[in-house]
């Protein structure tokens, strides 16, 4: 009952603030759904940086809102719909697991536009976008093979979905150009963001003889462990050099800002269209952090490879790609694997003596 009284009082008192928000109503409202906390210093942090860049660029025309730490379960659909109901007209849902919830809400609100990161289901009002991180993984594989004394790489996987599997394969293909006998040990932590598990996985990999840590998870925990143990590691999603000043070789930096700005501009112009954007180094959908903690010749090699990939002269999945079973994979893209083969990658390449979960 006292809540009702409070409500009545509050209704009177906030009447003023409601009218002030009505003034801003002609601004385009853009919403974001984040998987982790904005301070995860990895995946979500990069999306948040892009949102901030977006506000800096178009702040006078748009108003942004985000919901953080939204689990990929029954709460996701509500979170997306809450943003729709709050008047957001363009909504970015930034994790694979939001695919079905986003699609459900998109079907319900055909006049709202949705952008889903890293999924494969689309609709007239639901576009998808992602980055060709495998390009960066190939470079990292080359560096890792050069820098590893033991010839064993430690790889922390999140989920065995094609994005992650293609990253592992690209790493190995890159590494094999330097050291054909390179080995990789993989631990799946079954989570995108779980600093505790990520740190445990890094420790276990180092204990098993790996001397370079690579990760496809979102926190800097593994980098910190590598740093503590005096080992080398690659960052992921964001610049992690401050967590391993003597450890980080490079890091794949997700740079979503240009894409976000482009899409919001299109929405403002009324030219937004659904589609799929899968950009790489050539369109700066991601970038490589400076090459550090390595000799000059390795750095030169990495820069050379990066330039070749950017120029389209080198494709990480150039044919022949040989599967674990020793058979050549059908080459559908001319001289390299077709995009659809990479997007649905469900096999390990030769040289990985591990079993793909669920195979």
């Amino acid at each position, binding site marked *: 009952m006292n*809540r009702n009284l409070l409500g009545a009082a*509050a209704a009177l008192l906030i009447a003023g603030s409601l009218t002030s928000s009505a003034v801003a109503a002609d601004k385009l409202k853009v919403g974001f759904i984040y998987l982790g906390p904005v301070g995860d210093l990895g995946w979500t942090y990069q999306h948040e940086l892009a949102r901030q860049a977006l506000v800096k660029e178009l702040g006078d025309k748009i108003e942004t809102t985000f919901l953080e730490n939204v689990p990929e*379960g029954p*709460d996701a659909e*509500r979170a997306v719909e809450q943003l729709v109901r709050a008047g957001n007209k363009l909504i970015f849902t930034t994790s694979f697991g939001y695919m079905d919830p986003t699609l459900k809400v998109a079907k319900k609100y055909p006049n709202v536009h949705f952008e889903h990161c890293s999924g494969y289901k689309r609709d007239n009002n639901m576009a998808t976008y992602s980055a060709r991180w495998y390009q960066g993984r190939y470079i990292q594989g080359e560096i890792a093979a050069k820098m590893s004394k033991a010839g064993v790489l430690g790889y922390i996987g999140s989920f065995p979905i094609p994005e992650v599997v293609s990253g592992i394969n690209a790493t190995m293909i890159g590494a094999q150009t330097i050291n054909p006998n390179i080995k990789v040990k993989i631990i799946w932590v079954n989570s995108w963001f779980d600093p505790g598990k990520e740190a445990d996985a890094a420790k276990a990999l180092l204990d098993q003889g790996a001397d370079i840590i690579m990760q496809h998870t979102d926190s800097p925990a593994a980098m910190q462990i590598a740093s503590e143990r005096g080992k080398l590691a690659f960052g992921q999603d964001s610049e992690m050099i401050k967590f391993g000043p003597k450890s980080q070789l490079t890091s794949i930096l997700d740079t979503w800002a240009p894409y976000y700005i482009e899409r919001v501009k299109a929405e403002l112009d009324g030219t937004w269209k659904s589609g799929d954007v899968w950009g790489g180094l050539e369109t700066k959908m991601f970038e490589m952090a400076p090459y550090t903690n390595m000799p000059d010749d390795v750095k030169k090699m990495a820069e050379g490879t990066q330039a070749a990939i950017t120029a389209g002269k080198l494709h990480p999945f150039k044919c022949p790609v040989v599967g674990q079973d020793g058979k050549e994979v059908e080459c559908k893209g001319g001289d390299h694997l077709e995009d659809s083969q990479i997007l*649905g990658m469900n096999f390990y390449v030769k040289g990985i003596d591990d079993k793909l979960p669920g195979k």
Partner: protein
Amino acid sequence: MQLILEKRAERSRTVALASPLIAIGLTIVTMTILFMVLGKNPISALYVYFIVPLADGYSLQEIAVKATPLVMIAIGLSLCYLANAWNIGAEGQFLMGAVAGSWIAVKTQGTGAGHWVLPAMLLLGALAGALYALIPAICKVRFGASEILTSLMLVYVADLLLDYLVRGPWRDPQGFNFPTTAEFDPVATVPTLIEGGRLHLGSILALIVVAAGAVLLGKTIKGFEIRVVGAAPRAARFGGFNANQLILLTFAISGALSGLAGIIEVAGPVGHLQPGISPGYGFTAIIVAFLGRLNPIGILIAGLFLALTFIGGEQAQITMKIPLDVTKVFQGILLFYVLACDSLILYRFRIVSSSPQVARGAH
């Protein structure tokens, strides 16, 4: 001079009634200070948390959807706790129910099976939850194993079993390896009640469960036995009540309700089986059970109230840019005050001026 907690001769009825109101009042005061420190208008913030979600049909539906599993599980847990049986593993029973029920959905997928599918799923989900809960109960009765530990450990077993199934045998062949089953067929889906909303049949079932719980505890001999065994074990023994039998019974009921909640969640709001179907419902329900003072109606209110803070927390993030962490702080403060105020039902403050004295019974 010092302040001591002194046990009351008997429960204070006045405090028992006033305690939740005092707790809410103190929470509001604390949050007001916190909002002011954060530079947010406390009145609009509290308005967004508590009133806005109650103001439109969509949010009300979402509150019901969120509260449904919490209430259903908490009713079962309250029976256990009243009977002094400590089931901490509702999360595992929830997952087992979800897994068992999903088995039918996965096996009948695309076979054009009839309308028997959903009822069969719900029954199997409840049965699996009950059987899973009986494991720690039997270990307790037969071997004296701590049911707190065994039921908790079994949560992780259920979690990993679900994980294995959706990564392996039940994985959606078209799902690009992502750990999920295909979307369930319409006959395997819990129907929604209002066009365009997410309110589903499960919420009605939850209300029936609340009513059944109230009747069981208030009107039946079994309910009386449960309460006596918990409150006065010696008296119960003299009365010829079989405590072990009641442990088995309450665990089975609790497990069945958790399992039912699990399969309803999967066949309802989620629509397929995947890891992470429960954002900790089984554990949050423990809080709901105690917030509701192990009373069915109290649990219904507590479940709805907790759901309200979740929805309100999202609204606060959207409209006032209040971080999610503040919502968690808010829930923590609320629980703290409820428990603190409840201790005043059994204890009271007293100022003593003489030498230190140990508070009797305060342990």
